[in-house]
């Protein structure tokens, strides 16, 4: 119950920030919208547009109207296109979910065998390779790697129709890149957790009973590793939002990031507010959910996450 109240309180704070902050951006959305509509930016036209958008009401009334609409599913109209915000976001959402969600899922699935392999023989080949992989992922800028990958797979090797192919062709490589960038830190965390578990007394007991190191880790270290992975995945979701944006731009994917870029340029507060609120909700849900699962599984703090 406390967690739920805290989540609601956080979302309320986020909604306040989301409502007020875009309005502090320099640039007048009315002027930009008039340009888009081929109308002269006369004071009369600006006033008419502000009345149409009901911007002349007090800020409190505007906020109340916006929050009510947000909760009831009426997200308003895009200031740029005049179309419902839901219609602007709807067709783009599957692309972003496929890349971001698919990437983190891929990373979560692959980090376990890779981290396990690295932990079985610290300083062995698998351990060195995953360390190298982790360092490479942390040092190579994602935008550069994405552009290079797009050029290599598309123009140079002609393996994929990245821009005009079917959805699978278009999503495969961006998803893989997002996954790889998330995989690197997760693998090291899993590896460290397995190593830390290997030093515990119960593992030594398992070894004394005749189990091999791999068997012992596999059978007895799974729970702390899963808890550590859960803890590591939570902040990784924050990176996913930014990382997905980078690859969407590099691969010309018509996802949410392109819409956000256009909306920032045209000061489309309606779209920006819904987008930021959506990201804030995702974060609150992910953090609250992860905390809930952790507390149910094992209330003790995780000690092995690097």
């Amino acid at each position, binding site marked *: 119950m406390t967690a739920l109240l805290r989540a609601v309180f956080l979302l309320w704070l986020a909604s306040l920030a989301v409502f007020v902050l875009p309005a502090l951006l320099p*640039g*007048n959305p009315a*002027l*930009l919208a*008039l*340009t*888009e*509509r*081929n*109308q*002269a*930016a006369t004071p009369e036209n600006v006033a008419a547009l502000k009345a149409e958008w009901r911007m002349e009401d007090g800020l409190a009334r505007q906020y109340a109207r916006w929050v009510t609409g947000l909760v009831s599913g009426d997200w308003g109209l895009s200031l740029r*296109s*005049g*179309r419902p915000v839901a*219609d*602007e976001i709807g*067709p*783009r959402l599957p692309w972003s979910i496929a890349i971001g969600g698919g990437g983190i899922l891929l990373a979560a699935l692959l980090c376990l065998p890779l981290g396990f392999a690295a932990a079985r023989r610290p300083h062995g080949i698998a351990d060195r390779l995953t360390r190298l992989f982790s360092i490479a992922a942390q040092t190579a800028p994602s935008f550069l790697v994405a552009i290079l990958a*797009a*050029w290599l797979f*598309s*123009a140079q*090797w*002609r*393996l*994929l*129709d*990245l*821009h*005009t*192919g*079917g*959805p*699978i*062709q278009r999503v*495969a490589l961006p998803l893989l890149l997002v996954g790889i960038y998330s995989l690197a830190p997760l693998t090291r965390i899993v590896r460290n957790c397995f190593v830390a578990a290997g030093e515990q007394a119960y593992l030594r007991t398992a070894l004394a009973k005749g189990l091999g190191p791999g068997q012992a880790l596999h059978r007895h270290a799974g729970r702390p590793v899963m808890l550590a992975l859960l803890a590591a995945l939570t902040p990784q979701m924050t990176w996913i939002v930014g990382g997905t944006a980078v690859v969407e*731009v*590099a*691969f*010309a994917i*018509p996802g949410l990031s*392109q*819409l956000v*870029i*256009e909306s920032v*340029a*045209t000061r489309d507060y309606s779209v920006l507010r819904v987008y930021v609120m959506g990201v804030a909700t995702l974060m609150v849900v992910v953090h609250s959910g992860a905390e809930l699962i952790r507390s149910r599984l094992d209330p003790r703090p995780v000690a092995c996450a690097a």
Partner: protein
Amino acid sequence: MSRSIVRLATALALAALPASAQTPRFTVGQTFMAGSTDPGEGSAGWALASHGVAEKLFMVDAEGRLVGSLAESATKDSDGSWVVTMKPGRKFADGTPVTAAEVAASLARTNEKNAAARASIGKMTLEAIDDTRLRIRSERPTPVMAAVLAEWPFAVYRMADKPVFTGPYQIAALRTGDGMDLVPNPNYPDAAQRKPVLLKRFPDGQTMAVALEAGELDMAFNLPVEALPRLKARGIAVKTFLVGYQYMMWQNTRREALSDPRVRRAIDLVLDRAELATAIQGGEPANGAFPKGTPFALNDPRPTDAAAANRLLDEAGWNRGSDGRRAKDGKPLDLVVTAYPQRPDLVTLQPVVRAQLSALGIGVRTRVVEQPGPISSSGDFDLLLWAVHTLPAGDPGFFLNGFFRAGAGNNYSGFSSAVVDRLLDRLAGIASAPERAAVSGEIQQEIFASAPVSFLLTPAWHVGVGPKLAGYRPWGADYHIIRPDFGL
């Protein structure tokens, strides 16, 4: 061998392709796409005509001539109204005939909804005389109704549950922000010979160049100049052509320093347009408001004379100090050159313009704004680099009236000249093309004398084409990219 195996494995793994990927079609890359199918909204009419979906009553052809599209003629009646006669036998994409009543309804709707459709002649009243003839009255008179009806807002459509157009293609699917599938309009002549077109929108030209390089596109329209050597090295044909857009620099006459015509003329005189053309690796120095090769272009190049420019500034009281910078009454001559990123060439031109003006002793800073509209409308600039199609309907009246008449909507420089206004009034009463060319020439000379704007360049654009569209011939702009002869 190993590459073949990888390709085979990839093909098998990615077998879940949409059927459209297997269909013979043309794939065209562009950096813009209609966001709406309603010509009443924004610039949708322009984009839809460019995509080959919509047509107007009149249009400007490849040679810059005003010709009939859905209409045969427009004649002025004795009462000052215009009678437009349409071509017989034309149909909308749903098979219904194009009647005068349908045309009148669509143009009246657009004129009501879209401010751009009122720019030249204000509010229109339209009535069908019979099935093929249409009478038009306008709030403001025009001697060239055909040219007005060739302006981009005036797409003809029939309003069913959504607009239905008459062009050679119709929209089968519109994917917001991504692309659209075009299929031949079965009610357009030679429909059976046309292939479907996938129109793919790219957020930037570089990504589009990669897609062309990868063989994913049959055509990429308006490629960035930096990508050209790479494409040519791979044997991809690139067609370069001068466009109807003109690059110019507005001088804000409301600014204190620029309110003196001598200062503005000095700035105009010091500009080396050949150097500017070199900077963007394409295009030609502009002789005036209209591109070379059009009936309204001027023959004499704009002069570059640094000595005369220096003399003008001296006369205006802006004298050089010991540091070489000019000042007047202790106030330095500092100006800001503004550009916007939607036309990357303009940003490229900024440092070159700064260097040329600095040589004159002017302190120059550069600024890039996110969007051009608010800056031009508010007048919050000193010098504003700008790109605009000056002959969108094949007639100079649209540009000259809209940008130079005192108080006009696009008069960004705040220019006001009784002489120019009188000449514009005269232009409004002339129907013959040679006479209109002569008067527009006079107007341009007056503009040169006052220099509220410096015409800089006629830019060149670049279109990359694959073997399937090797015969594609770009027209002088992006108004008609996909046309009835596309791919035939």
